């Protein structure tokens, strides 16, 4: 008899749950997926609100694919993907190609002389530098600068950009939907025959990007923090690359990286907006079907060994106190992934969250605090990171201790049903909000497809969050938030004189 009310309750819960899920099933039914014979995958979500659409290519390659000596290459390649092809950005490709080869030769000669260090001949160095400059100038005569970007802008395109992370590189823009074919033309050319023109200028641009990061205290903190949190896995390296690697990357490095990783089976394209999936399929075959298939690159070998000691790094800067605390956690395909997200929500979403209440409102040791599960990536085991701005007159130690107390509380006391219900409702509201934006949806669908093998996991994940119990949270917190799994990075102020 005791089971009857329970099953009634269960039936009631399931009914409520499925009503919430119906709205997502309806959206799922508007997604079309197909794979070209060369292995490139496509996801199409129809949304006819306005005559526009967003287009995105997700390349399953990021800074995690870099080895020592070529850090920053995935990101520099992303920049090069805006430089055009044999058909975009050139006045005369045959001649330009010869001029580009001369640049490589001049650069190789210069590099060889430079390698002699203090024994290099200054006169010869000067001469070689002059030759390198001249070769670039000559090739520059054949360039139509930024034609790729201009083609998108002249079509009334928006949101043209790209991003490189530890896990992936994404390229995207949005167009008035009648010009859909323009994306197919430009994007397929981009990955069919890219030309690395203006390579050494763009390398300078990326070095400037690195300097921008270096001039920001939090940028520097994060770089130092990741360097100690990882000792083997490339997640410990900065996406933007080390300066000395940037200074030595070559066009040939970029070409080799392209051949190895930009193969169709490593690409997922997502199109969201006012489009006809049948037409997308036809265009995909016509344009992207041209890219020859190639074997998938060997997966990354290195696995970060279990952390066995607490790690710490302190930066002394002309900046205010800031705290980062991180704990290693599993990748996105681990069965507890949703539990980590629930913990993140519980700890740092909203003013009623545990960290805001504990650190900002009550103890007043911080002015801002947040927790992110999944830094710097999710494809491989990442970190659960906590970030706090220490309040004026308070110490970093107080902040660290307060974070620790909140984490201990997670282990000791089961969370209340009300708190967990809030997590679930916020997850649903957040997913609904993502559906309002074409580009966001394109990113999310492609990301889930590439990282988990099925875009539907975007919606399944919500079901998994709904299934999280207070015991799950205690169990996962207990194995994760332990002293030997902890890395701390802080900024201590070096007062200006």
């Amino acid at each position, binding site marked *: 008899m005791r089971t009857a009310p329970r099953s009634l309750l269960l039936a009631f819960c399931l009914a409520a749950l499925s009503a919430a899920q119906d709205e997502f099933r309806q959206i799922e039914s508007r997604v079309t997926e197909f794979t070209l014979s060369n292995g490139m995958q496509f996801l199409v979500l129809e949304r006819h609100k306005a005559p526009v659409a967003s287009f995105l290519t997700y390349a399953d390659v990021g800074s995690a694919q870099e080895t020592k000596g070529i850090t920053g290459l995935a990101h520099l390649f992303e920049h090069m993907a805006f430089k055009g092809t044999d058909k975009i950005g050139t006045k005369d490709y045959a001649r330009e190609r010869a001029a580009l080869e001369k640049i490589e030769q001049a650069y190789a000669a210069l590099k060889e002389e430079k390698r002699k260090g203090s024994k290099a001949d200054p006169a010869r160095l000067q001469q070689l530098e002059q030759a390198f400059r001249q070769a670039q100038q000559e090739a520059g005569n054949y360039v139509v600068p930024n034609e790729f970007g201009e083609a998108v802008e002249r*079509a009334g395109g928006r949101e043209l950009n790209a991003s490189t992370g530890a896990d992936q590189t994404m390229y995207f823009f949005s167009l008035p939907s009648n010009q859909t*074919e323009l994306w197919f033309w430009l994007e397929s050319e981009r990955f069919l025959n890219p030309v690395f023109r203006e390579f050494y200028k763009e390398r300078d641009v990326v070095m400037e*990007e690195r300097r921008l990061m270096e001039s920001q205290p939090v940028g520097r903190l994060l770089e130092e923090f990741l360097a100690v949190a990882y000792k083997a896995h490339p997640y410990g390296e900065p996406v933007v690359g080390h300066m000395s690697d940037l200074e030595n990357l070559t066009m040939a490095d970029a070409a080799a990286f392209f051949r190895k990783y930009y193969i169709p089976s490593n690409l997922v394209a997502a199109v969201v907006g006012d489009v006809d999936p049948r037409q997308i399929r036809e265009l995909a075959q016509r344009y992207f079907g041209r890219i020859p298939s190639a074997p998938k690159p060997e997966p990354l070998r290195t696995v970060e060994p279990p952390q066995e000691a607490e790690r710490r790094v302190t930066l002394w800067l002309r900046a205010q106190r800031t705290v980062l605390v991180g704990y290693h956690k599993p990748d996105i395909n681990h069965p507890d992934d949703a539990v980590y997200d629930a913990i993140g929500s519980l700890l740092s979403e909203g003013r009623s969250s545990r960290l805001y209440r504990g650190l900002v409102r009550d103890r007043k040791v911080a002015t801002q605090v947040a927790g992110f599960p999944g830094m710097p990536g999710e494809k491989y085991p990442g970190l659960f990171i906590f970030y706090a701005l220490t309040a004026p007159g308070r110490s970093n130690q107080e902040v660290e201790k307060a974070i620790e107390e909140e984490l201990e509380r997670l282990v000791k006391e089961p969370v209340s049903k009300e708190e967990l219900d809030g997590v679930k409702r916020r997850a649903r509201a957040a997913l609904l909000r993502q559906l309002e934006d074409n580009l966001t949806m394109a990113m999310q669908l492609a990301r889930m497809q590439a990282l988990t093998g099925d875009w539907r996991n975007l919606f399944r994940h919500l079901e998994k969050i709904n299934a999280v119990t207070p015991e799950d949270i205690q169990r996962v917190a207990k194995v994760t938030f332990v002293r030997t799994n902890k890395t701390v990075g802080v900024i201590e102020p070096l007062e200006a004189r």
Partner: protein
Amino acid sequence: MRRTALLICLILNLWPAAALAQIPKSYKELKYPPLNRITPPEPARFELANGMAIYLIEDHELPTISAAALIRVGSRWEPAGKAGLATIAGSVMRTGGSQKFPGDRLDEELDRLGATVETSIGEDSGRAVISVLKEDIERGLIILADILQHPAFPEDKIELAKIQQRDRIARRNDNPNAIVFREFRRIIYGKDSPYARQPEYDTINSITRQDLIEFHREFFQPESVILAVWGDFATARMRALIEKAFGDWPRGGRPKPPVPPVEPGARNRAGIYQIVKEDMPNSWVAMGFLAGRRDDPDYFALEVMNEILGGGFASRLFNKVRTEQGLAYTVGSSWQAGWDRPGIFTAVGSTKTETTVTILQSMRNEIERMAQSGVTEEELARAKDSILKGFAFEFDSTAKIAQRLVTYEYYGYPRDYLQRYRDNIEKVTKEDVARVARQYLKPDQLAILVLGKEKGFEPPLSTLGKVTPVDIRIPPPTRP
């Protein structure tokens, strides 16, 4: 049979070739069908008896409802000695809540609902937003109506907001990009101007609960509020819900506060200004002058001019300074026309210390070239295409449409301003651009700000003219 087989072979052989033939050699040869019609939703506008203006737009795509309001209040109207008062008031209205809805309880309730109700006050407007699953909209509206009318301003939440403010003051020199934009604004408007003054420890410490109460009483009245609500609802029912929530808020009867003028000196800030920050591997360079308003007749030609000079991925500054010279990651310009007061024109770039003066000259050359010789037909076409062909993006979200209507009404612009904007951009000619470039861009009258190391670049800054140092040290509190 054989013939059919042959035919099939032929088709199979020819098919890929035919498919390939369909790809034109250049994207410029692509032919596009006409754009599907833009069918913007029809907004309903009405006013409550107390003068509050409402826009409603139904959108049944998702089971959510959002609202956004602009309120006639802003830091430009706060007393100079109390800089920070408006920001604190905007924040404590929500964190402190009202008698009926105390802040901490609101935090809990809203987080449980997955809902947002927030208030804030910026330079020239106050803002309130709601974002809820549709079943919670009535609750959201009632909460918002109550905290706008009866904020409790409890002491503990005022103190919390002051800690946040003091922390922002302490951190304001940590990030170079924040420094350069802030200080350039202060150079142009003047550091005591209502458009550039900033909170200091003393102004924050002097703010009392009584100040917040008086500030609220002075500015919050229903006729100062324009609210838009959009999402999954029926207009008639939403109208009833809004009447219920806001209908008994009595009129305040206070007139619109006048827009504070920009000081006359703002029109002449020519010079070279320097901020020294030794721990940087690079420098920021900003140059510009006081710009105009959106209702200036020249605004449209200036927008097109700026698009060509420094907007986007194919502008002159981007092509020259980034692509050709490899000097910068960030470089560009913007013509920030104000809605109801003059804005600022700025060109900004960042480069390694050694090339500080190189980038400065390079940026200034582009401004000079624009002033002297205008633009080509090709450039004009690119800029206009970029703005006009992307017009459909103005309608791809109901939030954009709703917030636009509120903004136009708040600043006294016509409801069809977007259409007028489009028509006016369409009319801009090469001659118009050349004329406004000549008239507005005065390369020898630029204010130029350099942030970075003091030395380490050749030639030194002083070769360009007299250098005025800018002191960004944070004044310590004079009393606790």
